[in-house]
């Protein structure tokens, strides 16, 4: 009997323990789980005035992309502006040519892939000949050629011209402008899509001025040259200003002979003026910048 009662007591106790294990415990407080509660956005029913929007969390919008500033004028970025061009002229351009060839040893991309064709006594009059003159002609691959002939032979469509000093352009402006107009027409006849850059005549030093070659005369010629460009679609490039000193003459430091030809410093100033032109063309949108090179 006692054994029986003991058994029953054990069973009851075991059962109670089992129940407690199962979870008949008092409820405990549930920890709050932080949940981002979205702000209510007011949704206005169609026939009721819109409710004032509730403050929403500020959503950062990306700032508009700032247009990058163009590279400065001296940057190699502008080398490509001069690609596939030829610089033609007289002994003054020959000086530039020599300087560029020399500098390209260290800066191969200077003035892009532009080439040169210049001769000492070349002038506007000779440039207008239908056939290359026998003397003082521009030469390419050992042959005398006209400017259109050189452009065709080189397969270039852009030309930079500087002529006039050998014609005493400042002393008979009308004749020289007429010759320039003829030259531009001849180029366009041979290369209809030619882009023609007409560089201003460069100044002479104060000591180098002669009766037929004065800076006042050259300035007047350059004004007429600019007007001709506007009429013909050619593009005028002012080189002269960058080379002058306060006396309106070629800065002697820029001259190799205290007359009309450029020193290394003068050639640098000339190149600087060309790159300034390229920079302005880019800023104005006239030039889109270098093409992607494969």
């Amino acid at each position, binding site marked *: 009997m006692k054994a029986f009662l003991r058994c029953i007591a054990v069973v009851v106790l075991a059962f109670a323990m089992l129940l407690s294990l199962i979870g008949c415990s008092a409820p405990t407080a549930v920890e709050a789980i932080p949940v981002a509660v979205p702000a209510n956005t007011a949704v206005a029913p169609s026939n009721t005035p819109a409710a004032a929007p509730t403050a929403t969390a500020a959503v950062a919008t990306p700032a508009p992309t700032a247009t990058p500033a163009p590279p400065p004028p001296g940057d190699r970025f502008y080398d490509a502006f001069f690609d596939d061009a030829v610089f033609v002229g007289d002994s003054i351009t020959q000086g530039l040519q*020599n300087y560029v060839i*020399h500098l390209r040893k260290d800066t191969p991309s200077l003035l892009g892939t532009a080439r040169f064709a210049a001769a000492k006594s070349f002038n506007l009059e000779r440039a207008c000949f239908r056939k290359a003159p026998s003397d003082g002609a521009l030469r390419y*691959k*050992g042959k005398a050629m006209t400017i259109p002939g050189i452009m065709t032979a080189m397969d270039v469509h852009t030309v930079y011209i500087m002529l006039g000093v050998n014609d005493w352009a400042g002393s008979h402006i009308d004749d020289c402008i007429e010759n320039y107009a003829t030259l531009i027409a001849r180029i366009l006849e041979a290369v209809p899509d030619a882009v023609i850059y007409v560089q201003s005549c460069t100044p002479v030093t104060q000591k180098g001025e002669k009766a037929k070659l004065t800076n006042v005369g050259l300035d007047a010629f350059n004004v007429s040259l600019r007007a001709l460009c506007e009429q013909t679609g050619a593009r005028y490039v002012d080189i002269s200003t960058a080379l002058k000193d306060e006396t309106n003459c070629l800065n002697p430091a820029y001259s190799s002979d205290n007359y009309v030809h450029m020193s290394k410093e003068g050639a640098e100033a000339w190149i600087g003026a060309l790159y300034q032109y390229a920079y302005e063309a880019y800023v104005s949108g006239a030039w889109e910048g270098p093409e992607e090179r494969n």
Partner: protein
Amino acid sequence: MQKKSLSLLLTVCALCLCACAKPALETTTQDAGILFNNAYTAMEPNLPEMMEIPEDMILDYYGIEPADYTASLVRISVDNMLADEVVMMEASDEAAAERIEGLLKERLQAKAGEAENYSPEQFAIISKCGVVRDGQSVALLVSADYQALVDAFAARS
């Protein structure tokens, strides 16, 4: 036995003669380039400041095809108002040497044409200069000291 000895002796003599023969003189491209540099070094004291015309401009400048020469040295005056110019070329063969000589003579004529009315002093210098040829080596030499340049070219070694 004697015949065999004689044959052997003759064979040995023939071999000795071959060994003693002077080797054929070959001017390699490298040799020509070195000779040109040596000659130019000797010319330099007689020249103003000069600059190199790079090889990829030789065709544009002179019309000389790259296949026509195996070595070259081209220098012009940095001051474009001076006529000084040195062009030395080792032609690929005799026919190329003829072509190069012709083109360099045209170049000299063009220089004279440029200078005749523009710079009488330089025209006078150009008029006394010329193109020299030594086998397949051809040179255009322009300088007030033309003879010194000719001598340096002839003595290149």
